[in-house]
Every structure is written in C-alpha cells, then in structure tokens.
C-alpha cells in the first residue's frame, strides 16, 4: 500500500480531564521551532477534538500528553476513532505520567505493551525532552 506523504504537521494536547498542560505547551514550542505545523489544542481535550484537528491539518501524528495518571483509560479508543475517520496511517504518541499506579509506572515494558495493544505507535516516559520527541517523530516519518 502507498504510504502517505509526510507534511510535517502534528496535533498536540492534554487528553481527558487532564489540565496539566505545561508539557504539551513546551512540546508545541519545540515542534514549531523544528518547522512543524502545530495544532495546539491545550488541555482537557476530548478524543474527538484530536481527530477533528488531525483531519483539519492533515496531520502526520497526534501527540497526546497525560500527566495525571489516568492516561491509559483516556487513550483507549482513540485509534479506533482515527480509523473510523479515515486516518488509518496516523502516528499516535502518548507521553507523560501515563499510569496512576506506581506498580505500573515502575514496570515500563508493561506500559509499552498496554499502549501498543490500544494502537499507539510509541509511549514516552515523562523524562523525555521535547527535542527527543521531535527527533523521534522525524525518524518515524523518515524526514529531516
């Protein structure tokens, strides 16, 4: 199948009921600086808003930030919504403090497994810097 042409565009926001938006804000500045078109949705963003914004800017990726610990539950179903909307190739990243239980946070492979299962391409620890996220996405898109 033909792969879509990357156009350096991302959707960034904090999912579900999460108001902790500094991480997403820093990320949006880093992607803008790297020449990306950024649809920055701020905090407390429902899944459908991520999808609608991705359609609107023809996004390469949706970057979901979650700090408050309920990221796993909030992210479930986003891949299905993307597929329904015709965005089947879109890259999905999640990052932050994505699981409230420390037993999960301290068992990172289990978190990766869970996010893979719900259709996310990658999940990042909260120690990831914004520049690392930019470089990783560029590599995944095969662009400079």
């Amino acid at each position, binding site marked *: 199948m033909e792969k879509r042409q990357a156009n350096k565009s991302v959707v960034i926001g*904090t999912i*579900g*009921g*999460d*108001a902790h*938006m*500094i*991480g997403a*804000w*820093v990320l949006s*500045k880093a992607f803008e600086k790297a020449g990306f078109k950024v649809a920055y949705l*701020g*905090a*407390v963003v429902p899944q459908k808003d991520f999808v609608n914004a991705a359609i609107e800017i023809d996004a390469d990726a949706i970057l979901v930030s979650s700090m*408050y*610990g*309920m990221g*796993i*539950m909030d992210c479930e179903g986003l891949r299905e919504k993307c597929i329904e909307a015709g965005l089947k190739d879109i890259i999905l990243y999640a990052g932050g*403090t994505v*699981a*409230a*239980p*420390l*037993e*999960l*946070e*301290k068992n990172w492979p289990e978190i990766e497994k869970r996010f893979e299962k719900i259709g996310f391409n990658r999940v990042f*620890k*909260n*120690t990831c*810097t914004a520049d690392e996220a930019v470089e990783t996405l560029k590599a995944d898109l095969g662009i400079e």
Partner: protein
Amino acid sequence: MTFAIKNERLTDEEFFKIRNEEVLPQWETGKAIANLEENIAIAKELTQGKNYALTLAEHKKNGTNIFEPQFGRALTEYMIEGITYVEENSDMYPDGVWTLFSDTYTRKGDFKKAAAGIERSKKEGMNMLNGWPVVCFGVEEARKITKAAKCPLNLNSADEDARLQTEIVFAAGWNGGNNNPIMTAIAHSKNIPMDKLLKIKQYDARLGGIYTENGVPICPHNASNLSGYDAPAMRSYTNVVQVLLAAEQGIKYSHVMHGLGMNMIQDTAMGRVTEKLCNEYCERFGYKDMTFIIGGYPFLGAWPPRLEEAHAMIAWNALIDIMGGFTNIVLKCEDEAFGTPSKEGMANSVRLARHLVTLLGDQKVADSDRLKLEEKMIEMEARAILDKTIEAGDGDIAIGLCKAIEAGWFDTMVSPWCHVKGKVEYIRDAENAVRYFNYGNVPIPKEAREYNEEKLKEREKKIGKKLTFDYVVSDLQYASILPVPKPFKK
C-alpha cells in the same frame, strides 16, 4: 461586559434552593445527606479533638509547624491502609493533618466514569484512579475514613463544581475543603466564565459558614499554586481576594496556602506580605475575627525523577516553609515525578520534614534589608492589582476580579483556562527568584519594574548572554532535568 455576580452572602432561601435543586440531585449519594442539621451534629461528634481548623489555629498560636501529607486512591480500603501506614510510620500525630484528594473524573462531575474507574480498579487489583471518588462512595464510606484517621482531614477537590463533594465530606467530619476560585480556574478549568465559577464557590463557602456558625469550624484551603509558575505578587493577590470572597460567606479560618517559587527570600517575603494584606483588607471590608494560617505548597512545576533529587526538593521546600515562618508544611513526595503519592513516599516526606524542624530549632530567615526590599516590591505590586480590582468593581471584589481578569491585570503565563490573557511571561533571575520577562497588562509600578530589570541584568551578566524566550521555556524544567554525567577530561 457585565457580570452576573456580587460579593454578597447567599441568603438561606437561596442556599437551600441551590442545595435541593442543583447539588443533592447530582448523584444518588446526595440523598443520604439531605438533613443538614443532622450532618453537622454527626460531624461535630466525629471531630472532637481532631477538627482541622482548630488544629491549624492551635499550631499557629503556638508558633509550631504542622505537616500536611496528601493521599488519594480509588478504593476506601486503599485509603485507610495508606492513612494508617503514614500515621504509624512517621510520628505525624499530633502535628499532622491530611489532604485527601478526589480523582479527576469526580472533580469534573463525571461520576459515571469515576464509578467505572472503581470497577476497573477492583478488576485489575490495583489503583486505576488518581484519587478517591468521594461522590460515588458517599457519606458513610467517608465517615469510615474519618474514624480510621488519627489526624484531621481536608479534601482537595480542586475543580469547578465540588459542591456535592464538599457536602459529603463536611458531613463526614472533614473540615477543610477548597475555596479558591482563582486557583481553580487557572489550574483546572477550560471554559467556565469567572462569574459563573464564583457563584458555585459561594455555595461551598456558605456551607462552610453554616458549619462554622453551628460549632464545626471549617478551614478551607485558600490556594495560590495557580499555574505552578507565577509571580509572588500574583499569589498574594490571589490569596487576599479568595479570603475576602470566602469571608463574606461566613468563613472564619483560612489556610492561606502559597505555591512556592523556591527562592527562600522571595517566598518568605511573599508569605509575610500576604498575611499583612489579608489582615488589612479584611479589616477594611469589615470581616472580623479572622484566623489566617499561612502555609506553603511545594513547587508545582516538573519534579526530578530520581530519589536523591526528589528528596532535595522536598527538603528545600520544607526548609523555606520552616525558615520563612509558614505554619503549615504541605508535602509532596519522592513519587511526584512518576504518579500519585505512595504511602511509603508520604511517610518518608513527613519524617524528612519533621527532622528538619528538629534540626533547625528556632532558626528563621533573618530580618534583612534584602528581605525588606523583596517584601516592598511584592507588596507594591499586589496592592496595585488589588486596588485596581476594587476600584473596577466599585467596591465589590467579585465584580472587580472578573474585570481584572478581562483586562489582564491578573494574568498567568500558561493556563488551560481560556479567559486568562496569558500575556505575562516569567523567567528566573541569577538567584532563581521568579521575575517578569513580559509584563503583559499587569499594572506593575515603575519602581518594581526597575527592580525587576535590575534582577534580569544580573542573570544576563552571570550567563554572559541576553535573556530570550528560550530561557522562559527552559526555566520551566529547571528543577526536573537531571544532569548527564560529563566524561572525564584526558
């Protein structure tokens, strides 16, 4: 623009109309607390000798510190297990109080999702929510927690409509609660207009007033953590305005809880200025017999993800509280970078802070010219915004606040809330005190601006570079990024 709010006490008729029509019907657990008189009587009985407000006030009077760890889990049994563990492993009693927090689904009023989170936690055999779902569990479960705890309890509900949560926990003998509309909007809201939010918060405050008048003193958290990264004058302003709003509804005790910026001199000055202004403005508006307990909330920016650095943060924030003359030391713990606090982490934090109190004796930040100068600047700035607010509201602080936000006199740099201008920008100076990089529309007096510029120049001199917006962004993570070990030179 006109605003549908006035800083006036709710009448009994208004209060009970809201209670019966808007608050109790929100969820089925509202039924069990229909009788307010009975709720107050039970709360009184349950908190004999462990009232939150009176415990704070007593420590303030005695000049001693109080420790306030925080905890929240999806299930009641996890709550009781955690509280008991910390109390038994930290000598927290009798110098401690608890902040227990509800989960975000409950805070957002999505009780169905909170209920699903309870089921999910049971199914997975672990805690899947970021707090205790107060409303789904209801008053009898909350009373179980009250009975299990030795120390007094406060609820952090931290969002727009906490009225049913507040009703439930007050009836269970938790005598704290939130009364911080500005803080709520800045840290947790997205769209709600301030006048609408103030109307909701008047209810919580009036409920606290009714309990207080009937022998169960309530001491809400009056928090100014805001975005986690704000000028000290914005925090003082926030605390003073929130005190005035709550006092109108009959609140007599206020835990004036500052978000710390983590510069010792600046934070100390902030605490002093706030207390002075709280007293002065309450007197001016005729609110008598007020008790302010000054507290410090640890830095609310990003935390370091390693034990030693996290402990350094806990200790430094506690040191600022102790040496800065704050009564209440609110605690975060070593888990902060990773998730909601564990019972072990919280017990460690209480022990750590308690030992600092032991080591320090009566040492306090010395009364110096530097401290006085910092106080002078913060006071000048806070007064400028306060007085414009009162003038714009024609003496009504609620209307004034709405106008101050609209005009950008009160502002924050990063907030999820769409009504705040977001024009102001902050940067740290050479001593890591928080300074303005961009004043936005904040009416900072000329003398304070000159002082601010001087402080920015000191940092530019130190780093040998011009300060740019890049520093504004990188300063946000100054406390959380761990250094990469440098290779040895050959």
